[in-house]
């Protein structure tokens, strides 16, 4: 080595972020062309945890592929299995009892809160604040314990069945959920006081990482990313499925288009999910959790079926092309973070690298879900 490296004015260098970088929360690699601290161009490199779930969906029967769906997004797995059971029920015309559908909504919303809580902790940690992660994980632990008691697993749930559920919830569970709601409300207030108003936190996010509504449309961004850009889009409202039309809840939308707006959307969404859970507990009807008549072997008639659901990260779509056999002919998974991540390459141009990493955190990435 002969002396320090000097960079001439106007000269750029390539910086490799990842694939094992803590800020990317998984095996994601971004090749950045840098001019000093500023990003000239970025190229995302994917595929480090690609497992070809779509081929597995063709090789296995519909029930066999159900556990795969919860391996896509390990933080909000319930929403993804919900999409799959709804798609197959639509294709094979299976009726679902009302009680089962209510419990599904409860579970999906509980999972949405636990996913957002973990995101909140990790996001603040990205920005340099370690303590909120500990609070968030503690709250999330209460939810995971509740869900473990019913579903038997902590993250990769396989609780839904075609036509219903694996097992029913008992009074203990309902009581425990009722007890958790005020505790979470209190925590959300604590987070608002501790983090949302923090001046350092706000300076890192306000007016930083702009994503325009038009960019969202061109890239197909959904979920909190789109709602932080002033787009009032939530599959639960726009294309109602399951029992969501029965519930009274709001869709938080912010028009600032910056990283802080995306943060606020998720924090408000937790409050709305709590509202849905409260209503669901009040309305929970009695009855069976599996239909009386259900085909032993699921063979949807020939056709092309699509089902979209709102997961914690955005609009997740499943396409099943059936040829009438017990396996799907084509099994396509439309992952929300795939589209949300795609706009990063364009949006981060001209930003400073620390701001770009803060914006990446605000996109709420789960890499196994991008790579599938």
């Amino acid at each position, binding site marked *: 080595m002969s002396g320090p490296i000097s960079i001439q004015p106007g000269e750029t260098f390539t910086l490799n972020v990842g694939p094992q970088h803590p800020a990317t929360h998984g095996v994601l690699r971004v090749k950045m062309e840098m001019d000093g601290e500023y990003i000239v161009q970025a190229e995302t490199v994917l595929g480090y945890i690609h497992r070809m779930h779509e081929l597995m969906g063709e090789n296995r029967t519909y029930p066999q592929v159900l556990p795969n769906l919860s391996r896509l997004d390990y933080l909000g797995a319930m929403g993804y299995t919900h999409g799959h059971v709804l798609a197959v029920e639509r294709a094979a015309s299976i009726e679902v009892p009302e009680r089962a559908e209510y419990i599904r909504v409860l579970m999906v919303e509980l999972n949405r809160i636990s996913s957002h809580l973990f995101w909140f902790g990790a996001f603040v940690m990205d920005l340099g604040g370690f303590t909120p992660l500990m609070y968030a994980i503690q709250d999330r632990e209460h939810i995971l314990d509740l869900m473990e008691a019913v579903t038997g697993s902590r993250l990769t749930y396989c609780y839904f069945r075609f036509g219903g559920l694996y097992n029913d919830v008992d009074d203990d569970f309902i009581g425990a959920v009722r007890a958790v709601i005020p505790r979470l409300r209190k925590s959300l207030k604590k987070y608002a006081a501790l983090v949302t108003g923090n001046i350092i936190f706000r300076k890192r996010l306000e007016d930083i990482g702009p994503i325009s509504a038009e960019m969202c449309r061109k890239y197909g961004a959904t979920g909190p990313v789109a709602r932080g850009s002033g787009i009032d889009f939530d599959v639960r409202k726009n294309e109602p499925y399951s029992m969501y039309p029965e519930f009274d809840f709001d869709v938080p939308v912010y028009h600032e288009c910056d990283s802080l707006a995306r943060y606020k959307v998720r924090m408000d969404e937790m409050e709305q999910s709590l509202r849905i859970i409260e209503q669901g507990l009040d309305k929970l009807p009695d009855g069976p959790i599996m239909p009386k008549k259900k085909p032993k072997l699921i063979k949807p008639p020939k056709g*092309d*079926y699509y089902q979209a659901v709102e997961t914690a990260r955005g609009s997740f779509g499943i396409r099943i092309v059936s040829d009438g056999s017990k396996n799907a002919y084509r099994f396509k998974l439309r992952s929300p973070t795939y589209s949300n991540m795609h706009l990063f390459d364009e949006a981060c141009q001209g930003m400073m690298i620390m701001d770009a990493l803060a914006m990446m955190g605000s996109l709420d990435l789960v890499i196994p879900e991008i790579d599938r």
Partner: protein
Amino acid sequence: MMKNIIKQALTDLFPSPGTVAEELGVETAEDEVAENGKKKKAKKKEDPPRVNGVLERDHAQYGYDIDVQLEPGELLAAVMIIDKAGFFIESITGVDWIKEKQLEVIYDFSRYDFDPCRVVVRTRTPRENPGIPTISKIFAGANWHERETHDFFGIKFEGHPHLVPLLLPEDADFHPLLKDFKP
């Protein structure tokens, strides 16, 4: 209703002399009768004919509203209409119809507003030397979707700026979702 507007726009785009609109009316009447009778009969009914490649679907049964079948050459014009109408791109994917020796490419578009209308655009290309024009110049988000479809099916998207493997290894020369793929 956006559904009717976009259906009309796409129907008028490529008029073909083969189909007559009156046929469609007869078919829908039969459908209603079948639904009143037994549900099973309605399901077994064959699809109504497409008018210039456009078919309206029951959202509750299929999950989308408009189903458009196009030639690869007609794709860009149709996607431009969809873009102008304010749709966002959901996904692009392929299906390998090995018996018909064709590869199908499916484009999904949907809307952000409270007028739900999912448009599915389908186009087919021969299995040998498959090629389809890229739409990444209209929808920037199509870039990755097309790269993924190229990975899995080997479909060449002509004019794509950067058609290298995205999810598969960078030296991959196989296409795992082709039905004759052997690992």
